[in-house]
């Protein structure tokens, strides 16, 4: 299910068989190991990204999801030209990113949640002025953009305080504004909400959504917070052990990987005694046996019940309709499976192709 491949528009980003291998040295533990490594070091190759391919269409909001060390940040670094890949090719707005052509760099921006791009000891306003010159903005354009971003991100009171004295949430808003000053066409966000409290996370997501609604820019985001991706992106690329294990919409992912939906039924009248409750339970079980979709009673009490039904939202809806036609209820809720749970299951399964660290190439080197 390669989403972008069937898009009629020219992709903004194309990656073909992109790979990146890092080389590190292995040091045996202890003093003996330390002495030995003075003369002989084992060189270990670690494939962080293993030949991934995908495309991103203009205006898309794509989320790269994966556990730590899955290869999502490495992919982002190759797409922004920070890293040269070991193999494969990539094009961003028709340019090879690691050639770092000025015409490309003027159209992209990268925000890193774990690395500040603002001058630490100076107010954010100074970095904004530097970016004005770096991106060669006219004074009138700069003022207009600054006004818009200041209003959108509510920066009025933050611009003239040294960055080191801002809270993480305030700093992230400034980081984002600094990167958006030159109106980039493609925005890369690497873990933008990392370390933020829930309120700040929500605010940042709100700003991003708001900005995207106004400007329709292409956003590629990496995160291991499911909520970021769920709220911001229609498309998700799940990456684990350096390979893409899913590329498509979140709802499809949930339908494919979550075998069950939950139907919560609240009785029209509370069930008064044990006997009535037992009768109700029996009726439900009979319905379950005759239903085209099997369901199971997960919870049951005098006020409500929770049923677990296999299949997607449509199947759950049909089952709920079938039940409510027979049993009087005051409320029906169909709950989606928990995305965090789906992801945890997905990450724990072996990748579809490629290998994990076990396939690393090792070679000794004398230094």
């Amino acid at each position, binding site marked *: 299910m390669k989403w972008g491949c069937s898009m009629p528009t020219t992709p903004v980003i194309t990656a073909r068989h992109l790979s990146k291998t890092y080389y590190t040295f292995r040091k045996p533990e202890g003093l003996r190991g330390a002495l030995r490594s003075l003369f002989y070091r084992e060189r270990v190759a670690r494939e962080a990204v293993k030949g991934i391919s995908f495309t991103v269409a203009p205006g898309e909001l794509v989320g790269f999801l994966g556990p730590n060390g899955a290869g999502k940040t490495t992919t982002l670094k190759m797409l922004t030209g920070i890293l040269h890949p070991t193999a494969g090719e990539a094009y961003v707005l028709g340019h090879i990113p690691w050639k770092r052509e000025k015409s490309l760099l003027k159209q992209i921006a990268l925000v890193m949640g774990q*690395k500040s791009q603002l001058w630490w000891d100076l107010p954010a306003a100074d970095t904004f002025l530097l970016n004005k010159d770096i991106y060669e903005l006219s004074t009138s354009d700069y003022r207009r953009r600054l006004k818009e971003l200041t209003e959108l991100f509510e920066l009025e009171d933050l611009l003239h305080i040294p960055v080191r004295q801002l809270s993480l949430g305030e700093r992230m808003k400034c980081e984002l504004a600094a990167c958006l000053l030159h109106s980039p066409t493609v925005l890369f966000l690497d873990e933008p909400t990392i370390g933020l409290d829930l309120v700040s996370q929500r605010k940042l997501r709100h700003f991003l959504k708001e900005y995207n609604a106004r400007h329709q820019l292409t956003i590629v985001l990496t995160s291991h917070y499911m909520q970021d991706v769920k709220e911001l992106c229609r498309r998700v690329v799940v990456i684990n052990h350096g390979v893409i294990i899913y590329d498509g919409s979140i709802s499809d992912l949930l339908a494919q990987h979550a075998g069950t939906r939950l139907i919560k039924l609240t009785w029209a009248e509370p069930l008064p005694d044990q006997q009535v409750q037992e009768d109700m339970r029996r009726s439900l079980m009979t319905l379950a046996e005759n239903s085209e979709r099997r369901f199971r009673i997960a919870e049951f009490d005098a006020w409500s019940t929770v049923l677990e039904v296999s299949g997607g939202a449509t199947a759950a809806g049909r089952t709920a309709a079938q039940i409510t036609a027979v049993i009087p209820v005051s409320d029906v809720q169909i709950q989606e499976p928990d995305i965090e749970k789906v992801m945890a299951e997905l990450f724990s399964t072996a990748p579809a192709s490629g290998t994990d660290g076990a396939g690393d190439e090792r070679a000794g080197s004398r230094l």
Partner: protein
Amino acid sequence: MISSGRKYLTAGLLSWQDCLAYRANAAIWALVDGCGSMVMALIWLSVFRDRGEIGGYSLNQMITYYLVASAVSLLTTPHMEYNIIWEIRQGLLSGYLTRPADRYTMHIVSETVWQVMKFLMFLPSYLVVCWFLRRYIIITLTPLNLLFFCSAVLLAYLINCGMKMLLGSVAFWVTETRGLFQVLECLWGLLSGEILPLSLLPIWLTVIGGFLPFKYVVWFPTELFLDRVPVQEAVLGLGLQVCWAVVLLVVSRLVWMRGLAVYEGVGG
């Protein structure tokens, strides 16, 4: 072209403001950078007590040598290598690589702005020392000497920029480079003429030093100031300075570009 140059100047001025954020620290660095040679001038005062000439220098020449050498050294020694290794080791370079500005150029411009500021901060204490030692100072500058001296100082700065950019770029391949920096700083101190005029070094060391760029960064400009270099040798020296500056800047630029290809941008 103008707007392209402007971004580097803005970055330079910003690094100036950044340094001013910790004013006391900046002042201390400025003093530490310059005080070494001034202490040496005081030592030579006692060494010369019962001698007329040492290594071809009179007492007055020696004192003037150290005072000029300390100013030249301060003005022409950038320290961008520490910033470069910090950015590479912490992965902070990544943020600069995604913006349409050349980080190599930005390092040199920022350091140049900082050099000027450092010199201005150093100037008051320097002038006080000069005033105390005024009776030993000899200035026999002709306009030609002055022209040679200023050109030599500028070229010395470019040589140092090339050396420091090259040194910093080593961090693309070697994670811990501070040991290497220490070794080179010792060599630099000895072979540049900052610690001793080169005529006082053993001959074998001056022969080796002749093949290296160090002597052109402090010793050569200072000797020009003292009018101890014949015109022909001065022109040849300036020519060699140009060669060293070009070679070091070109090599450091190539190494930097190679380094970017292996840069790993560590950390999220």
